[in-house]
């Protein structure tokens, strides 16, 4: 009958109108500032540098300025300058650290390739999205100090991923420590048999 298609359409809109009052599936708006939708754990926005502990973020950066992420970043928005001196990292081994580590967040597209290629688990993806600034250029160029965040923060935003990373690092460090200990023991054992060279 002419108009039956129109009537069935009207019926659907009526069902939605009534449904929006009692059925949560029919009222999907999240009124942003008051209600905030929970972000999934895998959500990623701009990167940040992981430091071992919160007390001395600059001192315990995991990053060793190997500049792999700078090369692999498609839009080339990371700038690293190696430090002249070295400092001991978590396992006590002397490593370089980045004197300058800038990320230009106006160019970064949060594609997370830097995280994948970083061999030292030094750079991870943050979950911050409300970062408006007034200055278009310099305020969007995040320095090393603004980028460094403690591992504890990493545990809050990506719990499962952080746990895996810590487990893997722990095993690596244990293996490195045993190897170092074995090497030290071997070195300590080795000089005994040959006679110490005359003290020239």
């Amino acid at each position, binding site marked *: 009958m002419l108009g039956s298609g129109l009537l069935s359409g009207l019926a659907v809109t009526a069902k939605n*109108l009534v449904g*929006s009052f009692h059925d949560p599936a029919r009222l999907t708006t999240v009124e942003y500032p008051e209600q905030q939708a929970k972000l999934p754990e895998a959500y990623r926005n701009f990167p940040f540098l992981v430091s071992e502990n919160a007390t001395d973020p600059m001192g315990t950066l995991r990053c060793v300025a190997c500049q792999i992420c700078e090369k692999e970043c498609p839009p080339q928005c990371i700038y690293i300058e190696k430090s002249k001196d070295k400092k001991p990292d978590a396992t006590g081994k002397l490593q370089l650290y980045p004197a300058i580590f800038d990320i230009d967040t106006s160019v970064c597209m949060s594609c997370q390739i830097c995280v994948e290629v970083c061999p030292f688990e030094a750079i991870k993806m943050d979950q911050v999205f409300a970062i408006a600034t007034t200055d278009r250029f310099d305020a969007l160029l995040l320095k090393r100090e603004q980028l460094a965040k403690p591992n504890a923060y990493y545990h809050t935003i990506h719990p499962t991923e952080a746990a895996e990373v810590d487990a893997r690092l722990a095993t690596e460090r244990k293996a490195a420590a045993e190897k170092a200990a074995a090497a030290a023991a071997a070195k300590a054992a080795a000089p005994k048999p040959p006679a110490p060279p005359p003290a020239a």
Partner: protein
Amino acid sequence: MNADSILERGPLLVRDWLVSFLPEPARWLAGSLLAITAVIVAFASLFALLTLIERKVLARVQNRPGPNRVGIPLTKIRLFGLGQPLADGIKMLTKEDIVPRSADRVLHFLAPVALLAFAILTFAVIPFGRHLVPVELEAGVLYFFAAGAATELAVFMAGWASRNKYSLLAAMRALAQLISYELPLLLSVVPVVMLAGTLSTTGIVERQGGWTFGLLPQWHVFTPWGAAGFAIFFVAALAESNRSPFDLPEAESELIAGHLTEYSGFKYALFFMAEYFGMCALCGMGVTLFLGGWQAPLSFLAFIPSYIWFGAKLMTLLLAFMWVRATLPRLRIDQLTRLAWKFLVPLALVNLGVAAFWSLSADWTGAVRLTRWLIAAMLLAGPFVLLGRKLTAGLAPRIYRYAT
């Protein structure tokens, strides 16, 4: 049915008391001025409310809450969105009123004014309550359509004065639409006037009083010709007030804002006010002619004052307008005029015949009354199906084959 309970005569008593302060000759003038201000204040506030209700209904249909943010400034109170029309009003007032240099200034200014003037004129004859008729005219219905007919003039002036390619094209479309829907609108009203025997709106509403078996009100809409007439009236009213399936002139997906492209600021608001007034007037007339004006639906509910019933019916019709707007896609200009000339007008003429049969067979009594109903319904259903089939020739949901 105490026709003159205190509530019923309330507004009149107030008017007489106010007018009594003035000397005799000025009383009539003051009385009518009071009536005019009452109507304008009522419908202006209804317009403000309607813009909010429209956005809320549209939003709720689309699973979102609709405007609920505007509240008292500097406080957390949000007033459930009632502040929204106020905010829109202030915005419209403070917006800069740009008139294109090449525009025809006089006509550009006159168009919204004329449109609004004619829209307000049409309120003069609508009976809002048992005693609440602004002007008691013997040819009320004719006056209503005479005032409504001049809106085309104003739309033409708006389209022509803006000197803009889009608005001229849209003005032509709007005129074609308004003219081709004037006819079904009038033809759907003729049976009512014929059956009611009078052109005066109050007379028509009085004839719809009374209830058969105490339950079914004798409104025109409950007769076969009345139902068909109301359907045609509803569709034609949608087209006359440029509402959804027929909002072709300002079809935003094609011609930016139709003949309103070159208007901004308060003139733009005037156009919308005129559109809403036109919609309210047409719905008011629809209620008066078909839904029994201020008559109560059930006999024992008659103690509620008559203007409440008129308001309720008016609101339901307006909500139906919004409900249709939220759902239906838009018709193309040629389909729109074909619908008017090849479907609505012939159907209205057939309806005229059925109304004639109805009035001639008024004295059938007893079981035969049912057959009277059936014959009238058959007389209407036949052309409806035939014309419908011709209108949608070749259009049908298709069955699709699948690759082997």
